[in-house]
């Protein structure tokens, strides 16, 4: 056998098969079988029949949507300021924005809990607000990084050209900057939206005693109901695939 370039991927393919494909297969088998091992669609139908699980799904999507929106609103100006900074060593500024990522996130959230407690007096009265603050705190660097990368790459001569052709500040932003930074926005959204939908640890730690999709799965497994738990995981996977499909389409254009 002659060495081929594709051999380099063998370690990853093995990793993928054992830790991604095999568990995925197990999840799918459980999702489409019942307690006695027979194939069934009742788990799937059951999910959409229960208004509580649908409500939980909608709530998770809503939490993820608001988190992403707030992240974007904070991250875009930040990335813009960073990229446009005249500071010679601007990677140091970037570093400052990313430093929180180096600290384990449960530690950060534990600290955040104390801060919020000092401000609010009693956390338990503001569960939704705390969830959003916690999630934004957790995911903000993931939005800043890709945005900074695209904004920093934008050729200044393009902006100059725009100005020469008579665009005002707003026009420059909306017809030059924003379209050029679209790939960064898209990957930022993927990095934030999808994990925000299932990241129940933040909710648990900041005391919103409501399920989002992640914790709902756990509750089924605790009740020995592996089939419904697997079905919810499968539905989430489907949603994630759907969103990435939409995103790819958006990028392609």
């Amino acid at each position, binding site marked *: *056998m002659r060495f081929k370039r*594709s*051999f380099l991927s*063998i370690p990853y*393919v*093995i990793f993928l*098969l*054992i830790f991604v494909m095999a568990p995925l297969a197990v999840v799918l088998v459980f999702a489409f079988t019942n307690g006695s091992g027979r194939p069934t669609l009742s788990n799937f139908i059951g999910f959409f029949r229960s*208004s*509580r*699980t649908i*409500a*939980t799904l*909608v*709530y998770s999507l809503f939490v993820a949507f608001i988190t992403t929106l707030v992240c974007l609103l904070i991250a875009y100006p930040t990335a813009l300021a960073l990229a446009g900074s005249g500071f010679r060593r601007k990677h140091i500024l970037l570093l400052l924005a990313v430093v929180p990522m180096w600290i384990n996130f449960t530690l950060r959230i534990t600290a955040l809990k*104390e801060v919020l*407690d000092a401000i609010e007096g*009693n*956390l*338990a*009265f503001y569960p939704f607000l705390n969830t959003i603050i916690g999630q934004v705190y957790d995911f903000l660097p993931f939005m800043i990084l890709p945005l900074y990368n695209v904004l920093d790459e934008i050729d200044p001569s393009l902006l100059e050209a725009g100005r020469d052709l008579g665009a005002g500040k707003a026009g420059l932003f909306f017809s030059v900057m924003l379209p050029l930074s679209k790939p960064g926005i898209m990957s930022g959204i993927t990095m934030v939206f999808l994990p925000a939908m299932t990241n129940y640890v933040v909710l648990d*730690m900041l*005391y919103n*005693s*409501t*399920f*989002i999709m992640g*914790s*709902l799965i756990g*509750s*089924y*497994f*605790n*009740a*020995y*109901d592996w089939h419904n738990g697997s079905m919810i995981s499968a539905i989430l996977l489907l949603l994630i695939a759907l969103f990435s499909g939409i995103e790819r389409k958006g990028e392609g254009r």
Partner: protein
Amino acid sequence: MKKLILITTVIALLLTGCQGTKSATPVSDDIVTLRIANCEEYIDEGGWDADETIKLSDGQRIRGVDSLISDYEKWYREKYGKRVKVLYSTYGTNEDLYNQMTLGNTFDLVCPSEYMIMKLMREKRLEPLSRNFYKRNELYNYYAKGISPYLYKRMHSLTEGGRPLTDYAAGYMWGTLGTVYDPKKVDKADASSFEIYLDPKYKKRITIKDSVRDTYFAGLAIDKEKELAMPSPDYSRLLNDTSARTVSMVEDIITDMRENAYSMETDTAKQDLVTRKVDASLQWSGDGVYSIDQAWEAGRRLCYAVPEEGSNLWFDGWVMLKDGISGSSDRKQAAEAFLNFISRPDSVVRNMYYIGYTSVITGGRDATILDYIKYMYGSDKKNAVEYDISYLFDDKKGSHIIRTDKDQLDRQLYAAYPTEDVLARCAVMKCFSDPANRRISRMWTNVRCYRFPWES
């Protein structure tokens, strides 16, 4: 294609490799291997500082230098002239253990709670204890000699498929479900009822458990309040009601509790009590003792109360698994020897000190454990009061009395060793039947799921 074959072969090799180590049963004749799974932090792991040495009145010095596991291995070799190797692993909850077993992990000895023991009995997965295990005249039968007669009776009264729990399980730690509270913020009378979890006076200043059985129990006690208040109620029947009607009543109660609670937690409440975020918290007695100790160091005085309407008595116990022991008399003998070793009075003291929970072993004729209770909670002061826990040791009133500070009657001593009247109103919550389990799981998911605003 070749590449694919290569990859599949590698994976197949890897998988069989894993399989090989997992299901390997110990074959060597001279070394017995014992696979033990226990809750996290649920046995003395040693490493005590010298100043933590427990000095008992009879001159005994007890200190955990090495872990009880390695001490057991040494002891077994000395006493039986054979070598035993313990493969020790831990799990988080009873459900984790059950899932691990279902996924094919094999253990010889595990330590679940009473309801999980009943579930395993129902599924015929347990190896019964040998007759010899309960013989009190055997030299090393520390369990038979030391088990509290009262707690043995309570365990014996639990049956599954016509056989008592004690045929299969050796008790380990036990306790009650109650409320840890700050007496400056919460009236004792309020804390002595499950109603506190619905009381708007304490809105968002209390926590309940994020565990379906405990919180269901609290809701159930509120639902059955009237019946429980009648003269000589049948606690066990009332506090094990899982009928569809009751479950739906309890769902409403728990939903209100959730609204009223600061959080539903698994172990953050201990910290939240210390940092004054909450004033009362639903806890197991052992965690209660721990919280009271921790808070005391941080300058907050906490107390423990067991609800007056009736509460939960729980046990954790060691059971042998059939598919682990797999008929090996050597392994079974080593497993029972382990149970006896950890029931030896000094081992019991080490465990109780390290874990903070109360052992079912009271020592029988050996006074070590009683001495330890006096060492922890006793007092020589003039105003000390008498606290009678004779019922745990035998039937004679007044035979086992601790002289203690009056303060202890609401605090650690009361949490660790409640009085007889408290246990008389406590019931063990049995294993739910399969349909009841489905009902209660659905109820629990409903409570936690988000609701559309127009639905609530």
